[in-house]
């Protein structure tokens, strides 16, 4: 059932022209950034030879690229998740799922998987571009894998949050603005906090992604992402159950 709902969600996303537009624009930005960074790296490469412990191509290219896609997804994820449940409610298609023999958990997880797969598709070009460098040079696989793991966890947390906000309203635009406000708020709380150990920083997904970005796999960060996604998925399931209670 989860797979069935996920496939429908993915199909419905791909049937929207705006999705393809987003996809194309994002690929363009990423490719541009990749080439610009590569050019800059090639320019300073002769000077790097003289420096002891100079950053390799992975640190100079992959880390900023992953950082960029993380930031871009923070703004894009709400636009993609906004429709998931809000539009079902607005178009009155939710009764189809509620009257069918599927649980709220199936519905929420199905939508989550569908959207998550789409975000993987959206960001898939980043590792592909970076791995294309391995034709000419040796890459730091540890750093790449840490970044990839971090990106997957980060996307899961964005989708879970977006789904929950989408479950709260029947207006997709409100869902998008709401999710974006929460994500931006958490981000600003992080970069605005003056003390480096401020508890506000611990709330921001992007802050937890930073450790992965530098190649550090911290179980605390992994737990944070799992808890963050889990809590919002559970809240979304509860919201759907309450739908039957309050109409």
């Amino acid at each position: 059932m989860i797979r069935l709902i996920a496939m429908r969600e993915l199909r419905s996303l791909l049937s929207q022209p705006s999705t393809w537009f987003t996809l194309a624009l994002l690929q363009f930005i990423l490719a541009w950034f990749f080439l610009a960074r590569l050019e800059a790296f090639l320019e300073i490469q002769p000077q790097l030879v003289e420096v002891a412990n100079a950053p390799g191509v992975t640190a100079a290219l992959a880390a900023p690229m992953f950082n960029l896609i993380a930031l871009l997804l923070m703004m894009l994820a709400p636009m993609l998740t906004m429709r998931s449940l809000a539009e079902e409610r607005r178009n009155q298609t939710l009764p189809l799922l509620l009257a069918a023999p599927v649980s709220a958990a199936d519905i929420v997880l199905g939508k989550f998987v569908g959207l998550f797969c789409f975000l993987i598709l959206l960001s898939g070009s980043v590792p592909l571009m970076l791995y294309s460098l391995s034709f000419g040079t040796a890459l730091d696989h540890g750093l790449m894998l840490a970044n990839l793991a971090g990106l997957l966890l980060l996307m899961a947390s964005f989708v879970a949050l977006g789904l929950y906000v989408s479950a709260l309203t029947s207006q997709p635009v409100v869902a998008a603005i709401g999710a974006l406000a929460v994500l931006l708020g958490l981000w600003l709380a992080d970069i605005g906090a003056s003390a480096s150990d401020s508890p506000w920083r611990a709330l921001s997904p992007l802050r937890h992604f930073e450790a992965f970005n530098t190649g550090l796999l911290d179980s605390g960060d992994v737990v944070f992402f799992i808890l963050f996604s889990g809590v919002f998925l559970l809240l979304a399931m509860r919201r759907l159950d309450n739908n039957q209670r309050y109409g």
Partner: protein
Amino acid sequence: MSDSHSEITLTARGLYRRFGARLVVNDVSLELRRGEVLGLLGHNGAGKSTTLQLLSGCLLPDSGEIEICGTQLLRQPLLAKKQLGYLPEIPPLYREMEVNRYLIFTARLHGINATHASAAVADCLHRCGLEGVRNKRIGTLSKGYQQRVGIAQAIVHAPDVIILDEPTVGLDPAQIRDIRGLIRELGDRHSVLISTHLLAEVESMCDRVSILHQGKVVFDGTTATLAEFGGNADSLENNFLRITGVVA
């Protein structure tokens, strides 16, 4: 036609539902047998749609019990809903999907496996007269065809209990005749519960009628008893109005 010995497929006992301070469904009890078409009749705002939402599991009652083919809907919703097909007031259609794909999706959503789904959908397209538009996007269809897709969605998995909320709204006379024929035909094999405010619909399709008024069941009997109500053999319309207190 119904006979009192056939199996009971849907039972509702003592349903109550309020929205805020307003009691919308007030002690409603219903019984539906296999091979029977039950019409739920009432004025606008009588609580018909809410009752059907309760029976379909989309809305939880404040109190009361619902049993579908021997399974408690509130205790084992996933099992009970397998035997249920539901068309809400506004058909739940994904406008960007093609008719064929949409029906396969809904069939599989109701637990039909992939190998049987396409045969079930082909049969259903034929019964609902949708073969000509099977590859069209739902959003491009006319209202009447969309309504048919909505009905198709409710019957594609051959459920024992079919609940249709005003299935003929917005159709032209020829389509209404077709849909009525279809519902009559469905009533032979399954149990059908339809809500309507059209008496002609009740007369032509239903074996039994329940009249809802201000959330209460004020009449429950065969179509013939409604015609004979209170000893005056009158038109259904006059008896309906008499029961709901519009005329004395």
